[in-house]
């Protein structure tokens, strides 16, 4: 079974394409552990070394330990940072000739792609790094230096595969381990942390010929799960190298994407969550209101697409760098089978890198494939189908048989319901007959009222049964239509389950002019300095000054980002709403009188027209 599983994993193993400038690639856990020490952090904040670097292997890692509630185990990849060694390394690295794949150019700055408020929130986020626990700035460099010193055996391109058979599906999970995540320091991203676990899943089922074939593929996008993660195998967005899915890996973050490009990632800060939700609620309300006023009620509930209170970052998944896998420049050297019984998967619940005690947890290292940072099992591990929203989806071949089964069940229920309706209608007729007979007899008044109540109750029951029968008929019609489609080999739309699929930024949006970039870089600083100047030199006109400052900032923002037209339009609409409120206030009673007169006149006209016909 194990050999078969490995063969299956190899047959569909993914190909990874990285972005130029990426420094860290999938490696083996043994190679990583050889460079780590193991620590425990106690609830009182002190830490103790349990195994020094060089003493740690898989066996030592998985020894049973009992350090009490609140203790957190973690690995430390970078030991003491020798600044002199680092400086020499940095100098050497700066002047050595680099290949194209090692050089990263950011292109249009991330800050130029978003508005003023997200940039302000970003500034706060950056400042917060001073207060939060974080991976020290030189760690990424030290990690690169450490990786470069590792032996070739330690750096063999390795993935960890897991096979799960469940509910007619065969799930192939591919886990990739990276020694370091340098999204923040290397690619202007959210965070840095030691160690990084990433995963993609393939979902296979038996086809008509009785062979296992892929039907769905799902790429992990950090903590997200559900329908948005998966694509059907025949979706044009799923790029492949033969039978091997192609993954575009985010630079530094190592997130997996279906298409190459740059993805604007928006991080919600927990402390701003209430404001974010309020802003989204207000945005939805305004979009719905606008839709209703324009006679488009289908706009109700839609988001405005504005997320001004989230911090913007770019995930560069260009796929123009190193590539690993079938049909790529490098190939996979090792495929290792893991499961619930693999010792380092099952027995080690700690973090795979440095514990920084970051309250947002962005800078803390992740736990292993099976666990979350808090030691609870990961959903992707315990419920691989539910994680990708496949718990409600059947394999294609089973759909036909189950569709027919369900049709038969519902036909039976419909028949039963129809019989019940007939029976109850006969009872209703009997009761009606009795009630009618009692009508002329005044002494039977009470009995008559009782019969009326019974008639009412029975009518209600019949109505409910008829509603159920209508539902069943409609459902059977849909199942019948599906049966015909399936029998003819027709598939439903591949992307019907997606509501907000991840898409890279379009090329047109990436073309931000130099002026806009310059403004994006300096705007926050200028506004803060101007505010301080106002407070110091013009405190008596502070409110007016702040209003003027905000107005100017908004104007320059719109001007440099080519959105002056939008700004003028929105301001005009705002003025128009104000004018209408003024008119309503000034002419309230006149408006009421005219409305009532108009309504009266209209009703009169309609009623008269009816008589004259």
């Amino acid at each position, binding site marked *: 079974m194990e050999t078969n599983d490995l063969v299956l994993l190899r047959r569909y193993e993914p190909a990874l394409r990285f972005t130029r400038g990426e420094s860290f690639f999938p490696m083996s856990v043994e190679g990583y552990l050889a460079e780590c020490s193991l620590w425990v952090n106690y609830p009182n904040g002190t830490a103790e070394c349990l195994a020094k670097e060089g003493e740690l292997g898989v066996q030592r890692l998985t020894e049973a330990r009992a350090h009490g509630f609140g203790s957190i185990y973690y690995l430390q990849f970078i030991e003491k940072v020798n600044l002199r060694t680092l400086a020499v390394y940095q100098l050497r690295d700066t002047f050595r000739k680099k290949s194209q794949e090692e050089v990263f150019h950011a292109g249009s700055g991330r800050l130029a792609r978003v508005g003023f408020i997200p940039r302000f929130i970003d500034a706060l986020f950056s400042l917060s790094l001073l207060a939060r626990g974080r991976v020290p700035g030189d760690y990424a460099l030290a990690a690169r230096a450490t990786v470069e010193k590792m032996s070739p055996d330690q750096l063999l391109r390795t993935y960890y595969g897991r096979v799960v058979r469940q509910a007619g599906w065969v799930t192939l999970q591919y886990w990739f381990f990276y020694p370091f995540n340098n999204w923040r320091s290397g690619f202007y991203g959210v965070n840095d942390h030691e160690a990084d676990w990433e995963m993609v899943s393939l979902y296979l089922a038996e086809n008509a010929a009785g062979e296992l074939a892929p039907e769905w593929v799902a790429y992990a996008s950090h903590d997200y799960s559900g329908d948005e993660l998966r694509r059907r195998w025949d979706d044009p967005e799923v790029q492949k190298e033969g039978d091997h899915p192609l993954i575009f890996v985010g630079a530094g973050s190592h*997130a997996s994407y279906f298409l190459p490009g740059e993805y604007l990632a928006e991080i919600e800060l927990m402390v701003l969550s209430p404001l974010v939700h309020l802003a989204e609620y207000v945005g939805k309300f305004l979009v719905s209101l606008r839709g209703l006023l324009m006679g488009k009620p289908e706009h109700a509930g839609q988001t405005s697409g504005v997320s001004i209170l989230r911090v913007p970052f770019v995930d560069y998944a260009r796929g123009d760098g190193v590539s690993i896998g079938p049909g790529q420049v490098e190939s996979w050297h090792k495929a290792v089978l893991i499961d619930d019984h693999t010792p380092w998967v099952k027995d080690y619940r700690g973090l795979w890198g440095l514990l920084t005690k970051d309250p947002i947890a962005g800078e803390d290292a992740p736990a292993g494939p099976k666990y979350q940072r808090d030691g609870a099992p990961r959903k992707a591990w315990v419920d691989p189908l539910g994680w990708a929203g496949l718990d409600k989806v059947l394999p294609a071949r089973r759909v036909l048989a189950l569709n027919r089964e369900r049709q038969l069940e519902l036909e039976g229920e419909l028949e039963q319901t129809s019989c019940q309706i007939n029976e109850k209608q006969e009872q209703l007729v009997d009761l009606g007959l009795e009630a009618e007979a009692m009508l002329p007899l005044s002494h039977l008044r009470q009995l008559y009222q009782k019969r009326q109540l019974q008639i009412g109750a029975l009518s209600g029951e019949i109505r409910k049964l008829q509603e159920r029968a209508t539902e069943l008929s409609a459902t059977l019609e849909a199942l019948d239509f599906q049966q015909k489609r399936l029998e003819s080999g027709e598939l439903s739309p591949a992307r019907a389950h997606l509501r907000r699929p991840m898409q890279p930024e379009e090329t047109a949006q990436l073309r931000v002019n130099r002026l806009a970039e310059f403004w994006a870089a300096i705007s926050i600083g200028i506004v803060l300095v101007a505010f301080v100047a106002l407070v110091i030199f013009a405190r008596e006109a502070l409110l007016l000054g702040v209003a003027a400052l905000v107005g100017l900032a908004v104007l320059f923002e719109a001007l440099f980002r080519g959105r002056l037209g939008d700004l003028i339009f929105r301001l005009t*609409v705002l003025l128009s709403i104000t004018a209408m409120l003024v*008119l309503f206030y000034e002419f309230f009673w006149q408006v009421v009188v005219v409305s009532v007169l108009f309504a009266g006149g209209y009703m009169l006209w309609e009623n008269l027209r009816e008589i004259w016909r």
Partner: protein
Amino acid sequence: MSAAEPHQIGITRPRLLNLIGSFLILQAVAWLVLGIYHFFILNFGSTLLNQWLVAKTITLRSMLDELFIQAAAQQVLSTLVESLVLVGVAISGFFTAIGFFNGRRNAWILAVTIQGTSLLLGLIVYFIKKPVHIYLVLLISSLMVAYLSEDEVRAYFKPAANTTGSIQHGNE
């Protein structure tokens, strides 16, 4: 396609486009009349008119003298500014109306700007003086804005905007 070029072929011309263009012309005329009224009738102009009626010679020097005297009294300065703004808006309005009739792409944003300026001036005048005629200005401009906001009209004058796709990104 540049901002000055006509709209794309194949997009139907919304109804009432000519009517709105006509309203823009009427609005421009109204602003022009208002500008003239402010300047000539309210203040400096009345003095000149009087001089002319009593056959006094109006020279450039006498006009400038009058201007400085009135400016010193801070009467004509504000009137001059008001009048110049109103005349400026009127002229923009005329060109915008022509652009509207011809379906020029930048006519829409100019029309919106004119209405915005009209509303801003109207609201300022409302909060300072509350003249009777200002309510009509506010009403007409608001109705024009409502019509200019319609998707049909916007699509006629400019292509649909692209939206940015973005993902929510949790963090491990």
